């Protein structure tokens, strides 16, 4: 998860709108089912959690299993009561954490 995740939000946004947020992050999402040529299992390593908070309040959470594809694309919705910060966190099995904050300004 070394590259910056991509986040798309629509514009303009009015207070009270419900918007769709689209996210994309690079990650191998290793399932734990694969084996190397000499039969050794490649250990599982996936992003297991994604949490989105707007001004501190949780708006969406995803608990992911190996059935989610590599380079997870996640699109969710949120109500926008007013301007604020949308903070998104991705956590993987290796303990790596990526946090991306997007400022939302209502017109």
């Amino acid at each position, binding site marked *: 998860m070394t590259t910056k995740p991509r986040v798309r939000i629509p514009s303009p946004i009015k207070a009270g709108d419900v918007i769709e947020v689209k996210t994309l992050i690079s990650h191998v999402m290793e399932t734990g089912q694969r084996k190397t040529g000499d039969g050794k299992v490649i250990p599982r390593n996936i992003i297991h959690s994604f949490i989105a908070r707007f001004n501190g309040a949780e708006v969406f959470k*995803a*608990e992911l299993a190996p059935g989610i594809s590599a380079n997870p694309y996640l699109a969710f919705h949120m109500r926008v009561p007013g301007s604020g910060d949308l903070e998104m966190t991705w956590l993987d099995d290796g303990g790596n954490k990526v946090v991306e904050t997007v400022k939302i300004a209502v017109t």
Partner: protein
Amino acid sequence: MLQCKDVCVVDRREFVLGAAAAALLAPLLAEPAVAQGKGPENEWQQLLKRIMGDATPTAGRIALELPEIAENGNTVPFNVSVESRMTESEHVKAIHLISTANPQPAVATFRFTPASGKASVASRMRLAQTQDVVALAELSDGKFLMARQAVRVTIGGCGG
């Protein structure tokens, strides 16, 4: 050289469960291989039961969009949504996505609050082979909704 066996059923089924997966999958360990005639079919039903308890789900109000034919089992786009006003008193708490024939049945659990505005999520899933995908929605009043969609997978996760 790596073998492309990321989603195929393999002879030796060794599940490496992380903490999050353990919470979702609980005692889904050492299930017999498909060859024995049991296999994943029981696992996904057990998972549904664990989520719902004694409740019986109803059909309707939950839309599970998946391609009828998936050309690449490694990345099958989906969209799942439930009609709901998403108010404090009446909203969708979670949507669980379950595979009926992958090595592990749990695909994802999406959790919502009234601040979500809409109980709708899109992503991409892995499908090891042609199978049904099940979506189970948990409502704030304790009720469950269920939808099931068949997907034909032409090229499974192994490019075969």
